């Protein structure tokens, strides 16, 4: 895994994914370690991001590494028309590893093929965001003590949500039972369902989440965006039925936890936040440990 780029969650075998989670646990126990003092990491964010960029930069700082980079492309030579190829080849000279978010799909795969230093894909348009998937897996592991044989419910926009697609595909390795809750217009695409069917796993589809909550070990909430609907009236009709309130959590399993890749708008009411079953802020923190683990592994320190 040393020096190997991470572009898509499928670049890692199940064993490699579990290895990242194992190392992440070590960083959760001991987050400040000066292991990257000799390293410079490039953080190239061609489009704005809050959580992903700051958690990467926090991870690098907590490991004693140095950061070069930018948080939007407008002040860089990209604005002058420089190709991604030239940008990557240049910045690879200045750094030992490149973290990149770029709105162009496939840009991370391309960068990984031309770059002499490893690339971590921090999101390429609607395509892949593998570090999110790893931190989701880590959060499930930490709350359930296992990844195997769980009932995982996904709620909201299952059609366009890239985090949902990658996590569903990753969970197909762990004998998961899927509960898919979405408006009809935003159902999980067949290209993703194909992976569930290939592994002959059980999945159930719903349009309302009430009946799912008592069965679920994990409730993975996502945001429904108004612009996804061709008919704005349809959005108005359904928008509140995918919002989670405290009073909906009367009957749950003991190990039940609520996850959300964030940012949330109103799909989880703030009255859920103090509940011990609400795990989404801890989930965002787990992103730091998982990214620390990836940096340490890819640069050969673990």
């Amino acid at each position, binding site marked *: 895994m040393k020096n190997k780029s991470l572009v*898509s969650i499928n670049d890692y075998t199940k064993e490699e994914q579990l290895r990242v989670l194992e190392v992440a646990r070590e960083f959760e126990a001991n987050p400040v370690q000066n292991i990257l003092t000799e390293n410079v990491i490039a953080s190239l964010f061609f489009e704005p991001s809050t959580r992903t960029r700051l958690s990467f930069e926090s991870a690098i700082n907590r490991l004693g590494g140095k950061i070069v980079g930018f948080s939007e492309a407008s002040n860089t030579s990209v604005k002058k028309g420089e*190709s*991604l*190829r030239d940008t990557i080849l240049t910045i690879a000279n200045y750094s030992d590893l490149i973290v990149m978010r770029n*709105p*162009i*799909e*496939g*840009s991370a*795969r*391309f960068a990984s093929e031309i770059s002499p230093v490893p690339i971590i894909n921090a999101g*390429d*348009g*609607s*395509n*892949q965001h593998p570090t999110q998937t790893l931190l989701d897996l880590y959060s499930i592991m930490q709350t359930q003590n296992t990844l195997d044989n769980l009932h995982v419910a996904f709620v909201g926009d299952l059609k366009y949500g890239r985090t949902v697609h990658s996590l569903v595909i990753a969970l197909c390795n762990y004998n998961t039972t899927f509960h898919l809750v979405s408006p009809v217009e935003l159902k999980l695409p067949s*290209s993703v369902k194909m992976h569930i069917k290939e592994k002959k796993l059980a999945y159930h589809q719903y349009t309302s989440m009430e009946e799912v909550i008592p069965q679920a070990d994990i409730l993975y909430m996502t945001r429904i965006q108004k612009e996804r609907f061709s008919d704005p009236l349809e959005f108005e009709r359904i928008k509140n039925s995918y919002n989670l309130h405290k009073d909906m959590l009367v009957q749950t399993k003991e190990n039940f936890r609520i996850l959300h890749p964030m940012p949330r708008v109103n799909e989880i009411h703030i009255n859920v936040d103090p509940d011990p079953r609400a795990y989404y802020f801890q989930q965002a923190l787990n992103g730091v440990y998982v990214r620390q683990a990836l940096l340490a592994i890819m640069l050969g320190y673990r």
Partner: protein
Amino acid sequence: MSEKVKELKVSAIENGTVIDHIPATALFQVIKMLKLDVFDQMVLFGTNLESKKYGSKGIIKVSNKFFKPEELNKIALVAPHASIIEIRDFQVTRKTLVEIPDTIAGIVKCFNPNCITNIEGIPARFDVVDKEDIRLKCHYCEKITVKNNMVFK
């Protein structure tokens, strides 16, 4: 010795390759894919010819050229039932069918306008994920290009 006598719409070649059972609509695409438009030997072709199996068909006869399977298999995207006949000294020495390859590079554009291949002008590469229905998964953006939105370079 009984020899079937039939009128040839496209003259025989002495040595080379005959590509038969090309859909009539795909003939010029096949010519382009095999770069026969810039080939320097004799190339004979016919299209909208009668075919018992397919209604109408195209045929190409290329002199003094024997293709490698990987050169020919890419035409399966537009001519999935094409047969390849090698001719030496006017005799058929080998007859095969094209096979859809596992990967496709450089000949089809990714249909996703936001794919890096369309933005930086990189040759698109695909894994063929469905050979029956022809579905190509982009190596870069991972989106699926289907038959209906295939654009050839």
